[in-house]
C-alpha cells in the first residue's frame, strides 16, 4: 500500500479544527466549549506530526523533529489548560449555579 498522502492529514485536521471552532462558537455549555478548544488543539497536533513526517527527507525515520516536540508541548499545555478551565468552571458553578457563559452575565456593555 502506498503511504497516505499529506493532503489527507491536512483535510482531517482542517475538518477537526472547523468542528472545534464551530463548537466553541455555538455551544452554550462551558464544558462543551472546552471540548471544542481541545479539538482545535488536536487539529494543530495532527498537522504538526504530518508535516514533521513529510518534511523529513527519508520518510523511514523522521529527522525534522521540531513538529513532534511541538506536539508534546501542546499536549502538556492542553492538560494544564483543561485543569485551569475546569477549576474556573467549577468555581463559577459554586458561586452562580450556572454552567453557561451567557447566563453568567452580570455585566453588560
Amino acid at each position, binding site marked *: 500500500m502506498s503511504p497516505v498522502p499529506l493532503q489527507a492529514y491536512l483535510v482531517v485536521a482542517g475538518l477537526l479544527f472547523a468542528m472545534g471552532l464551530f463548537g466553541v462558537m455555538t455551544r452554550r455549555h462551558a464544558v462543551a466549549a472546552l471540548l471544542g478548544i481541545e479539538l482545535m488543539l488536536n487539529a494543530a497536533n495532527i498537522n504538526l506530526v504530518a508535516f514533521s513526517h513529510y518534511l523529513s527527507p527519508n520518510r523511514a525515520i523522521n529527522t525534522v523533529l521540531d513538529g513532534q516536540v511541538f506536539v508534546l508541548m501542546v499536549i502538556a499545555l492542553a492538560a494544564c489548560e483543561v485543569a*485551569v478551565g475546569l477549576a474556573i468552571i467549577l468555581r463559577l458553578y459554586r458561586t452562580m449555579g450556572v454552567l453557561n457563559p451567557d447566563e453568567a452575565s452580570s455585566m453588560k456593555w
Partner: protein
Amino acid sequence: MPVTNLQLFLPELLLTGLALAVLLLDLWLPRARRSVLPVLSVIGLLLVGLAAASLWDPQRGPVYDFWNSYVTDNFAIFLKVFFAAVGGLVVLLSTDFLRDVRAYGEYWSLLLFVLLGMVLLAGANDLITIYLAFELVSLVSYVLAGYRREDPKSNEAALKYFLYGASASGVMIYGMSLLYGLGGSTNLQVLGERLASGEVTPLGALALMLVLTGLGYKVAMAPFQAWCPDVYEGAPTPVTAFLSVGPKAAGFAVLIRFALSVFPSLLPQWQVVVAILATLTMFVGNLLAIRQQNLKRLLAYSSIAHAGYLLIGVVAAGSQAGWGLPAVLFYLVAYLLMNLGAFALLLLVARTRGTEEISGFSGLAQGAPFAAATMLILLLSLTGIPPTGGFVGKFYLFAAAIESGTWWWLALVGIINSAISLYYYMNIARLMYFGQPAPELVKRPAGLSVVVWVALIGTLGLGLVPEPLMALARQAGMLFVGR
C-alpha cells in the same frame, strides 16, 4: 549551539527562582509573617530589572541561544526591564487589596509566574518557545482574573477570559502548525528566509491571519476585543491594572518580532490588515468608552483604544522600523505610568467611597486636591495633551505614521480619536472639580501612594524630558532597522 553562556539568561533564572521561592515560602511561613512576600517580590523584581539592564549593550547584535530558540537583543532587554517595572508597580498596587483576601501568598507567586512568561515572550525566537511563554502568561492570567473566589463577578471574568483566550490560542497554534509546514522549521529567522523565497500562497496568508487573530485577542485588538471590558470589570482592580499593561505589552512584543522576522515577504499585505484593524480598534475603544459609568470598564475601553494607537506604530514599523519601534516602546512606558497611576487613584477612591463608578470621583478636588490634580494630569496624559508622557508618546507614534509615507492617514485617524477621547476623560475631570463635594480620602496605603507618586513624576518627566528614554528606545529598535 546549545547554551553559549547562561549569563545572558540571568534575569529569567532569577525570576524563576524568585517565583518558586515565594511559592514555597507561602507554604511554610506562619500566616502572620507572610507580609514579607510582597517585600521580597519587589526586591527580587528590582534585582531582575537590574540584571536585565546590566545586559544592555548598544553595540551588541542579537545573541541566539538554546538552539536558536531564544534571543537576547536590546529589544528584548528593554522589554524585560519594562516588565520588571510593571511587576514591581503591580505588587505595590496589590498589597492593600490583598489584606481582605483569604488565599494570600499564591497571588505573589502567580504574579511572578506571569511576569516570567512575559519576560520569556520578549526573547522567544521560535514558535515552540513563543507558544509556551504565551500560554504561561495566559493560563496564569485566567487564574488571576478569578482571584476573588467568592465573588461571582470575578469568576465570570475568569470564565470569559478563559474561553476567549483558549480559543484564540487554539486558532493561533493551528496557524503556527501551518507555518511549520510551509517553512519546515519552527525558528523565526529560518521561517522568514524560507517564506521569503517562495511566492505568497493562500495557505501562507491563512497562517498569517490565524496567528494574527491569536495575538489580536491578547492585545485586545478589534474585532477581538469583546472579552476585554467584562474581564476588566470583573477582575480584582490590581489585576485589571496589570492585565491592561502587562500581557498587552507582551502581546505587542511578539506581534512585532513575529511580523518583522517571519513575514517580510508578506509585509504590504499584513500592513494593510493591521492598519484597518488599528483604525477599527481606535474607534471601537473610544466610541464605546463614552457611555461608560464604571471607571474600570471605561479604562478597559480606553485600553482598547490605546492598543489601537500602538498598532499605528506597528504598521509604521513595517516600513520605517527606525521610527515605528522606538515609538511603540516609548508609548508602552508612558502608558504603563499613566494607566497604573489612574488605577492606583481608582483604588484609593474606591477604598474610601466604596464605589468603582465614575461618580465616586465627584468633588474630589475639595476633599483631596492633590489626588484630584494628579488624576487630572494622568487624564491629560491619557488624552495626549502636553506636557505629559502621553502627548510625547502619541507625537512619536503619529510622526512614525507620517514618516512611513503610505500610512500617514493613520495619524489623522489617531488625532480624531484623541479628540473623541477628550470628551470622556475630561468628563471625569469635570466631576472632580465641579461635582458634589464629598469627604476626603481617609486612608492612603503606602503602596498606593508610591505608585501614584511614580506615575505622576514619570508622566511629567517623560513629557518634559523625553529624550533619554527615546534614545534607549531607538537603540532597542535598531535591531530591526534595515530589514
